[in-house]
């Protein structure tokens, strides 16, 4: 993305590697998630109490969702599914605390989509064998080979841009709205920007909460469905 709505560059390492807002915010989310998991998984007891109940409930939920969508024999994916889901939830809701969501950067969403792409094809080869995998590419008949390959490549692109488009769309509309409201209070001559206090919250509910949570869920669900469909 270009100048105005692109992530700010915080620091430039020698050799032209830039540390952007996206990277810094991703680090913060990583630290938050790691601290959460360290603090809440200490001192587990056989009979759960307090925070342990909540943690067990969340883990149960992730496992049962994985089982429901991917099938019983693929529960091994649950840790990745859970991690991806919590990272995406935090990342998409990051705008609520006034920071730039890391998923509003096509680099973040592409990286996640590439992980899904690798998972799809690695586990497809692993479960069908290389012969079965290649045979699947010329089905239903060999002429469709180029189309199958294009379809395979389109999957990560649409995954990455679905998430990116939704989040960056919300980001752009919100920043334009804040700009317009600031301009409005300036025009009337109010010393306090009163319009910016309440009005944006309704839009935050749709653009950040609704579409953020929904898009996290959809990304995780599509990853699960695509991986499990290629496996059997």
């Amino acid at each position, binding site marked *: *993305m*270009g100048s105005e709505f692109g992530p700010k560059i915080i620091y430039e390492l020698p050799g032209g590697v830039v540390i952007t807002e996206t990277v810094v915010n991703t680090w913060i989310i990583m630290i938050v998630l790691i601290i959460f998991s360290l603090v809440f998984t200490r001192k587990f007891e056989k009979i759960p109490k307090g925070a342990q109940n909540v943690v067990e409930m969340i883990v149960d939920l992730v496992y049962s969702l994985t089982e429901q969508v991917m099938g019983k024999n693929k529960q091994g994916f649950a840790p990745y599914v859970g991690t991806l889901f919590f990272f995406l939830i935090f990342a998409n809701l990051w705008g609520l605390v006034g920071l730039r969501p890391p998923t509003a950067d096509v680099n973040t969403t592409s990286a996640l989509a590439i992980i899904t792409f690798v998972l799809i094809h690695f586990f497809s080869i692993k479960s069908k064998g290389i012969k079965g995998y290649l045979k699947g590419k010329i089905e239903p008949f060999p002429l469709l080979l180029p189309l199958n390959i294009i379809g395979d490549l*389109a999957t990560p692109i649409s995954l990455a841009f679905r998430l990116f*488009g939704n989040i960056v769309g919300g980001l*752009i509309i919100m920043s334009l709205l804040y700009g317009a409201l600031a301009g409005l209070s300036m025009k009337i001559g109010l010393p306090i920007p009163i319009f910016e206090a309440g009005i944006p919250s309704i839009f935050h509910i749709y653009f950040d909460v609704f579409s953020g949570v929904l898009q996290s869920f959809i990304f995780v*669900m599509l990853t699960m469905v695509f991986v499990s469909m290629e496996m059997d």
Partner: protein
Amino acid sequence: MEYADFFTKFISWLLTFEKNELILAFSAIGAGFAMIAGIGPGVGQGYAAGIGAEATGNNPKASKQSTMVMLLGAGIAETSGILALVIALILLFANPLIALQGDKLVLASSAIGAGIAMIAGMGPGIGQGYAAGKGCLAASINPDGSKPSLLVMLLGTAVAQTSSIFSLVIALILMYANPLATTEGHYLILSASAIGAGFAMLAGIGPGMGQGYAAGKGTEAVGMRPRLQPQIMRTMILGQAVAQTTGIYGLIIALVLLYANPLINLL
């Protein structure tokens, strides 16, 4: 050859304007084109709302649940309209084309191309609205087993979104990383290619509507027989992937026009 004469005159008239003026003028047309996409969500959400009213009439006890599903589905159907709005707003308030180096006619046409590409959002809007209606119906007929059908609706509509996502990609490429602007010479062909790439993306209307129909039917089927959810979902997603094909043809033609234009070499 009166028409040809008119066309040359028109082009040379356009070229008399300054670079920024031409780009801004064409951006206005592009922003207008982009908003045509609003037809889709309008039709789709209207359908969903109609089914919602019907469902409430048939089964008032489950009206809370079916209304929730309807609103959720309508919120998803809104997405392609919002993506179009974003492109239009960028063209109006933060036009990136002015900062780009390149020929003025090519850049100006890119604004129109980006706008036309976003019209494809019409398809997903209609399709997702249909799916939202079916989800609402399923929730009203079988309120206890509505969870599996809701899941299918969410997945199906997410896949139906794909075409408007591809359009967004092409529009963003045209606006922020325009490969035509850096190409030298043959400006008329390059400008026409920018508009043509936008037109190619219109093919996405079909897949959007079709995939939405598949999502709706899948939701309906799962609503009736929740236990068959894995098989139904599998068939639905496989079919949707096939339905995407023509939209991907459009995407390929758009990318060829932008990155590997064969027409330039013909001259």
